[in-house]
């Protein structure tokens, strides 16, 4: 594992997070320090170890395919930043030149 080489601006782009140059610098240093800490894991012999996603043995959980009441549409839409009729109003997604 390499440490301290995190390209914060690139990662922030992936995470849809606008950062100021000062934040890029601050988070870069802090995340570098954390990566140095987690580098300790390189010492563990894990080549033949299975990965654990979660600890309880549960496989696909299904229920009967029967409609049940859902959340009230009005209540949910009222929690949105912007609505129009029965829809969430969102910014234009398809560009004018697309």
């Amino acid at each position, binding site marked *: 594992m390499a440490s301290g080489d995190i390209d914060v601006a690139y990662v922030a782009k992936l995470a849809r997070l606008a950062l100021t140059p000062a934040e890029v610098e601050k988070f870069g240093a*802090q995340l570098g320090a954390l990566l140095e800490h987690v580098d300790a894991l390189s010492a563990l012999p894990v080549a033949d170890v299975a990965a654990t996603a979660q600890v309880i043995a549960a496989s696909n*959980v299904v229920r009967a395919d029967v409609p049940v009441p859902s959340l009230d549409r009005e209540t949910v839409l009222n929690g949105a930043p912007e609505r129009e009729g029965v829809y969430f109003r969102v910014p234009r*997604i398809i560009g004018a030149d697309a």
Partner: protein
Amino acid sequence: MLNSTAIGIALAVNSGELSATDLANEALARIAERDGEIGAFLAVTRDLARRHAERVDDAVRRGKSLPLAGVPLAIKDNMCVTGTPTTCASKILDGWIAPYTSTAVQRLLDAGAIPLGKTNLDEFAMGSSCENSALGKTVNPWDRARVPGGSSGGSVAAVAAGEATIALGSDTGGSIREPAAFCNVVGFKPTYGRVSRYGLIAFASSLDQIGPIAKTVADAALVYDLMAGRDPMDATTVDLLPEPTLTGLREDLRGVRIGIVKEFGLEKLEPSVRAVYERAYEDLQKLGAELVEVALPTADYGVATYYLIAPAECSSNLARFDGMRYGLRVEGADVGSTYEQTRAAGFGDEVKRRILIGTYALSSGYYDAYYVRAQKARTLIAADFKKAFAACDAIACPAAASPAFEFNAKADPVSMYLMDYYTIPMSLAGLPSLSVPCGYVTPEGGTLPMPLGLELSGPLFAERSLLGIAHAYERATLHAQARTIPEIVATAGAK
């Protein structure tokens, strides 16, 4: 009566000796008087509390008996309650009103609990001091220059300051146990999958678990029994009938083997803190327990493992906060910049750090080196516990290496992350684990005695045995009752 236990209050209300409405009003008055100084609550749900109290009084008049009749309840503000603000102490959800109620809360309300309000937390439950809240400051009732711990800081402070009898917290890497230790209350994280997370706003889905915060182990057992069990709304709840714990409380520890972890040697601690834990181990022995040394060779890798897995899951879970369907929206030039600006304005530094580290650990080229390696380390940690539990019934260790620290004392994120050194390994293994008060130390430079917590952890699904052991220790030592918090000066900071 407000200073009584949940069990005592329910008894008095069910017998008609006490009205839930009077009690609710008394609790609300106490919050108005005390919370200006403590800051446990982000919102006080006065009308809701009174409505539920009336409902309980009606039920009692009709001859019904409810296990939590009239018991004042505080709810961590990452759990939804219909019609009330649910903020996760984040600007991105400030003002959002939950359209449904979480299962854990609903089960307690059905049992007669009175919802007093929503309590402060580190933003999205990410933190160990409650300092990462974007919406309020909670202080430690035992020394108001110190943090209450986190992330369930508001919930533990509410119980410690006598503002609520019981509270709900959530624990991902120690967020119930560490603050419970800092504030001298009992905090219990059940086995992963025991309590429904429906309506708990997700942080790290393979780790998050809801649990009770209470003044006594018996109260925690009662609340746990009411919440535990399969919920069709949460497919990760286990389909395994939970054993009642309240009936399993014991008075001695004869025949019980308590594991003392070699790698958690007390010599790492300050001498005064060390003395408290040495005494706690002796007290377990005096109760009849056999102390056995167990090894957790991978426990030292817990924090590193956790700080890859939890941020990875957080970066995925928090992707839903994009300014489209709920919460804050900051308009940008196009949809992409609207996402980016909304998240930049809505999330605080710690949440941003975790989203960044998680996104990095999951990104192409680093996924195997970081995320998958951490998942494999998690397998080793869980296997170590399994081996240890072949030789003991429960493991005892400190809940934290020190008592509550002063505000701004852990400015460096990694030093804050290390606060969870003793709680994270159990979370990674999914184990039931709790903190019970075990004594006091006066920190260097401080003048007030600060509480410490003993962490007891058991094998998967061994809640009944674990709470039984904790109860025996608590009843024999009565540390929480030995002192009271410094007086709270009534303020006009009514909420």
